[in-house]
Every structure is written in structure tokens, then in C-alpha cells.
């Protein structure tokens, strides 16, 4: 469970996140949406402890991130938009390293290594160096490594960037399965169709403020909008693009890029 209370962060005069209050319960797949620069990555970085908030607090499964960071990190799995891998390790060595970092039993690491590398189509590349793997293979390896210590909370920044359709399908199914098994999944994405397909709830951030929160159908009803998530998104974030409010209600949204 993620509990965010009055969270704020500024960079100089720019207010990246303003007074964010949010609870993501256990087993929910939550999608955080917003235009570029809305504060999504800053929020996810505050959830992982990489960025300290100016005000407010974050609790992960009851552990306050500021007071008890190590216990909170133990329960967390984080995949940034550009994840780092040690290029001169082989996939099993990398998994062994991550397992050691999180204190995962060696036998379990070996077992997971066998099962998951096969499941993620990496079994034939066990002896290759990570630096020699393709982008998609590295992404898959990152997922295997992140799931290794059975995190209770998953924070993923842009989970599907640069992946092929097969891997995208696989990741979407995996995230849904994780949520069903009780893991809290918090992800940010720009692909609205993905959010529409897999999210239990979405939150829309605009200029650092949470402007909408709830299941997609509820949002449509609440804002008296018909159509897809794209219309809701464009209407609620019109201000970010300097467009008149309600732009998304038009049948064909104006070209904004």
C-alpha cells in the first residue's frame, strides 16, 4: 500500500508537485498520467526515495520513507525509464547481485534464474554479457531482477518504451497478474490505451496538481465526457498545452505538437 500525504516538491521557482494526496491500496494497478513536465517522474522519484519532498510524507506498506528508508526500500521494486545494468555481468550474475542486495536466498535466486530467464526468453543468453543484449532483452532482464525479491510495491516509469509487441503483451499480463496477487503497482505512462486496458484507477497530473483520480468510467461520468481516456486527458490537461479548457471535448482534438 502506498500512502502519500501533502507531498510537495519545488526546483527553484518551479513547483513540480503541489500538495499531492493519494492512497494506492494493496493489489491495485494504478496509472499515473500527465503531460511532459507535469511532475510524474518527480512523484515516482519521491516514492522511491531518490528525491526528498519539500513537504509531506510517503509511507510504503506502513513504513515512512523518510524515517525508515531501508525497510521501505526492501519492499520496493523500481524500474526507471532508462534503467542501468552492469554491462560486464552475465544475466545470472546480475540476478545474483540483485538477490544479494535484497538478501534473497541463493537457492531461490538460482531457481528464479532458471525459470524466469526461460519465461522471458533469455535462457539462450545466459552466458552472454549484458552489454551484448538487445534493448528489449535488457528490459526483460530488468523485470526479472525487479521481481526477484518479491516486492510488495512496484514503481515503474514508462514500462513499455522500446519493447516489441510480444514483450509488451507479456509485461502487461505480468503486471496484471502481480496486482491480482496483492502487489501494489504504480506506473507512469504516456500510452493512454495501455492505461485504459490495464489500470484499476488512474490519476491525472497537470502542472504538479492531481486534477483527476478514479476508475476511468467514473472519470468519464464525473466530467460529463463521452469517448475514450484521450478525451478526458486532453480536456483536463488543456492548460498544460496553453489550450482553452474543454479542448478535448471537440470531436477532433487540435494538433498540439
Amino acid at each position, binding site marked *: 500500500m502506498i500512502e502519500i500525504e501533502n507531498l510537495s516538491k519545488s526546483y527553484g521557482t518551479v513547483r513540480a508537485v503541489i500538495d499531492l494526496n493519494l492512497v494506492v491500496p494493496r493489489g491495485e494497478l494504478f496509472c499515473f498520467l500527465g503531460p511532459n513536465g507535469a511532475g510524474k517522474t518527480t512523484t515516482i522519484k519521491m516514492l522511491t526515495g531518490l528525491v526528498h519532498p519539500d513537504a509531506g510524507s510517503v509511507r510504503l506498506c506502513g513504513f515512512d520513507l523518510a524515517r525508515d528508508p531501508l*525497510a521501505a526500500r*526492501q519492499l520496493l521494486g523500481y524500474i526507471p525509464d532508462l534503467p542501468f545494468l552492469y554491462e560486464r*555481468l552475465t544475466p545470472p550474475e546480475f540476478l545474483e547481485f540483485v538477490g544479494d542486495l535484497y538478501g534473497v536466498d541463493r537457492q531461490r535466486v538460482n531457481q528464479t534464474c532458471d525459470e524466469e530467464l526461460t519465461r522471458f526468453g533469455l535462457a539462450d543468453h545466459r552466458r552472454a554479457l549484458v552489454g551484448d543484449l538487445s534493448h528489449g532483452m535488457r528490459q526483460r532482464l530488468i523485470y526479472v531482477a525487479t521481481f526477484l525479491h518479491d516486492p510488495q510495491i512496484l514503481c515503474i516509469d514508462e514500462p513499455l518504451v522500446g519493447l516489441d509487441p510480444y514483450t509488451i503483451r507479456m509485461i502487461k499480463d505480468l503486471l496484471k497478474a502481480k496486482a491480482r496477487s496483492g502487489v501494489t503497482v504504480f506506473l507512469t505512462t504516456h500510452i493512454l490505451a495501455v492505461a485504459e486496458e490495464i489500470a484499476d484507477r488512474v490519476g491525472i497530473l497537470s502542472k504538479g496538481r492531481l486534477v483527476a483520480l478514479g476508475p476511468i468510467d467514473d472519470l468519464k461520468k464525473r466530467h460529463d465526457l463521452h469517448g475514450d481516456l484521450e478525451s478526458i486527458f486532453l480536456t483536463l490537461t488543456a492548460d498544460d498545452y496553453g489550450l482553452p479548457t474543454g479542448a478535448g471535448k471537440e470531436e477532433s482534438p487540435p494538433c498540439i505538437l
Partner: protein
Amino acid sequence: MHPLMVLYKKDGHILANLNTVLRRESRFKVLFILAFALGLFFGLYAAFLSGFRFLNLLGGAGFMVTRYLFSLIFLALGIMMVLSGIITSYSSLFRSRDSILLLTSPIPDSSLVLYKFSESCLLSSWAFFFIILPYTLAYAVHEKLSPFFVGWTLLFSIPFLIFCSGLGTIIVLLFIRWIPRHLREWVILFGLVAAGLLAYYIRPTARPGLDDSQFLLSRLIPGLQLASNPLGPNWWTSEGIMSLARGQVGRGLLLWGVLVSNTLMVIWIVRSLGQLLFARACQRLWGIVPPRRGRERLGAALDHVLSPFGSISRGLALKDIRTFLRDPMQWSQSLIFFGLLGFYFASLRTFHYHALPDVWRNLIVFLNVFSVAAVLCSLSSRFVYPQLSLEGQAFWIIGLSPAGMRRVLLTKFFTALAAMATISAALIALSTTMLGVAPLLKTVTISLSLAIALGTCGLSTGLGAIFLNLKQSNPMAIVSSFGGTLNLALSLMFMAAVILPCALPFHLFSQEKIGPATLHHMLEFIGPAIVGLTLLTTFIPLWLGLRSLQRREY
């Protein structure tokens, strides 16, 4: 398992996999890099040994100085290690690519900082292999000391290097944690204070009436006194090694104990500061918003200066200059190297070197040319050589633009040359003015510095294009590759090939072994040869690099 052991185990795996990586490299490349490292090691050994023999030839003063030099080199090395520790700690603590992975894992900050600190110490260990070891070997051979001397040096050098790197790490942690909000104003204030102190320090003073030996000692004594201070870790190190070499085991072990206990204290401070400050220092650094107005003003000024070169060259040069100025690793290293040389050259009059006999002044002038050239070689290998490869994934922007590869390559070359040539010529002009040498020597050395800037920039840009590696984003990996090592080796060879033929006739002239007419005749012959060599060294790599860029598929 302790978090530190987990991290070291990972490094063990990486080290074991080095075998796989090396096997892929051609045997020639590996042997070339090894041969270069060995050549550098034995070259330095030979240079140190001839230095000791030269001092011995001076008689009494030289003999006394040799005795003190052992302590002095550890003082100099200690200062260098602290500076190196500052740069490597900043880079490994705050700029390394694995920091997000490690910071989100349940590793305590203290362990993370200790791990990064040990990485920084390892990066600094080059000093042991390339300075301490050849120096100690040369010293042991010259002074006919026991073969164990090198072993004692190793015993003391490891804690000494850790101690100095630790000071660098402590400085970085404290500075980043409390980095001033108005950094620019503080930098200006600090610069003004430093300039004032420098002006006071280098003010001309009357030369005492001393003969050469006394003069030499009196100039070195302030440094020697500092090096002989019993509270300094360099003194514990040098005295400890000498005590063990003389068979004074008790005294030697006592000094080793003092050094090790102080080193452990430094490690403890690093660990504690890491736990206390690292997270907050990261927040402080990542939360800095650069002043936009200053950037805009600088951008506008550069734009104006570069406008005569046309929009494409201006755009390319502006991008490179901005990238350089916004990377503290790049400009801080250049500033430290050139700043130290500038400080030393500005101090030449304070040391009354201008009042030395011609033989000495001539020697110092060419040593200064040599130092500036060595810094030019290392900086062009570090920054100019990898600049094309570092375009990386963004290379398509340049590749698809109407700029053309020829213009891209030449703009990079001329941008680097403008900076390198201006700084090196200014430094040599300062050095020769301070030493008050004859106009001919001044002209020749300034021309030499320009030739070296031209040659090294041509070599680095050209070889950087030939050995282009767009997949590698780590500049250090590019620099330490085969192409990078070849570039450094060729630059150093070019530097020696240009300086030595010029230095020799001036040396013979200052010793009155040849007259002014012979000197002029020799220069008339050497000058065109150096010009020819410089042009070949500059344009052949550029031409080959351009051909390689144009033929390459992206």
C-alpha cells in the same frame, strides 16, 4: 552478506568477465596497451634516475636535495591525490550510472559511500604504479638501498593513498552538502580573493646575494620544510620507509602505525559523513537550478563571437562549447591542470628564477614547454579524442544535416585548437616573460606550443573519427580503448619529437658550446622540419578520419 561484500562480489564477477572482453579484442591491441604502459613505467624510471644523477653532479646542494626529495615527492603526490580524490569521488558518488539502482536498494548510505570511496581509491592508484613505483625503484638504485625498499614503499603507499583520497572524498561530501545557493557569486568572490593572494604571492622581491648552491637550497627549503613537518602524512610515509630501509624496524613500524591509524580515522569519517550527509548532498546537487540568465548571456556572447563562421559551424561549435562548460568534470580538470601551471609560471619571479644563470633559465623554459605540452596531450586525449564518439545516439542529427562530415570534423578540430592554442601560448608567454629570456627563445617556445596544440588537436580529432565508437557512452572507456591509447602514445611521441630538437641547440648555446651563428643555422634547418612534421601530424589523421567518417555506415 554485508552490503559491501555484495558490491565487491559483483566487481569480482566483472573482473572475471574481463577475460571474455579481452579475448574479443585483437591480440595486437592488448599487447600495444601493455607495451605502452610498460614503456611509460620504464620511461619514468629512466627520467627519475637521470634526475637523481643530475642532482648528484651538482655536488653538495644537489646531494642534500636528493635526501629530501623522497619526502618532497610524497608531499606533492599527497596534494595531487587529494585533488584527484575530489574529482574521482564526485564522479563516482554523484555522477555514476549505477547510483539510481543502488540508491533504491536497501543498502545503507554508509556502505554505499564506503564502496564508492574504495572505487575512487582504486582509480587513484595509478599514482602508485606510474609515479611512486618508478620513483622508488630509481631512488633505491641510485642510493644503493636494499631491494626490500620497494616492498616497504608498498606497505606505506597503500594507506597513504587511501588517506589522501579520503580527504578528497570528505571535501566533496561537505562541499556538495553545503554548496552555496548563490554559487556564482561565491565563485566570483573566491576568484577575486585568490587573484589578490596570487598577486601578493608573486610580487617581485629583491634577490638575496647567494651563490648557485645556496640559491637552489634556499628556494627549495620552504617546500622541504613543509615536506619535513612531522605532523604530515607524507613525512610519516617517507620517514617510515627510510627507517625500515635503514633497519630501524621499531621506528618504521611506529610510523606505519601512526599512518594506518590516521587512515582508519579518515575511513571512519568518510563512513560517518556518508551516513549523515550523502542523501542530503544528493538532494542538494540534484535540486540545483542553474541560473538561466547567466547562461543566456554567455550563449548570446558566444553566438556573436562565432557569427562570422556561418550558421552551421557556429551551431556545431556552440553545442560543443556549451557541452564542455556544462560538464563540471571537463572544465574542472582543465582548470586544475592549466591553473596549477599558470600559478607556477606566475610564481617564477618570486622564486628569483629570472636571476638564474642562462643554462638554468634555458633548462626551466624547456621544462615548462614540456609540462604545458604534457598537459595538452593528456587533455586532448581526455576531451578532444572522445568528442565524436560521445555524440553517440545523437549522431544522426549531425549525420543527416546538410553540414557534411568535412565541416563537422573541421569545426570540432578548430574549436579544440582555438582553446588549446590560446591557453598554451599564453602560458608559455607568461613563463618566458617571467624568466626574462631573449626574444628568440621566447618566439621559438611560443611557436612550439602552438605547433604542439595544432598537432595534438589534429591527432585527437582525426583518430577520434577513425576509431569512432557511437555505442560507448562512457568517456573513460573511449579514452582507455586502443584508439585512445594510440592517440596518447602518438601525441607524446610527437611532443618529444618537436621539443627535443629545439631544446638541444639552445642548451648547447647556453653552455657556450656553440655560437649565435651556429644556433641560427641549426634553427634554420630544424624549423622547417618541425613545421613539416606538425603539418603531417595534423592533416594526415584529419584526412584519414574524414575518409573513415564518409565511408562509414551508421
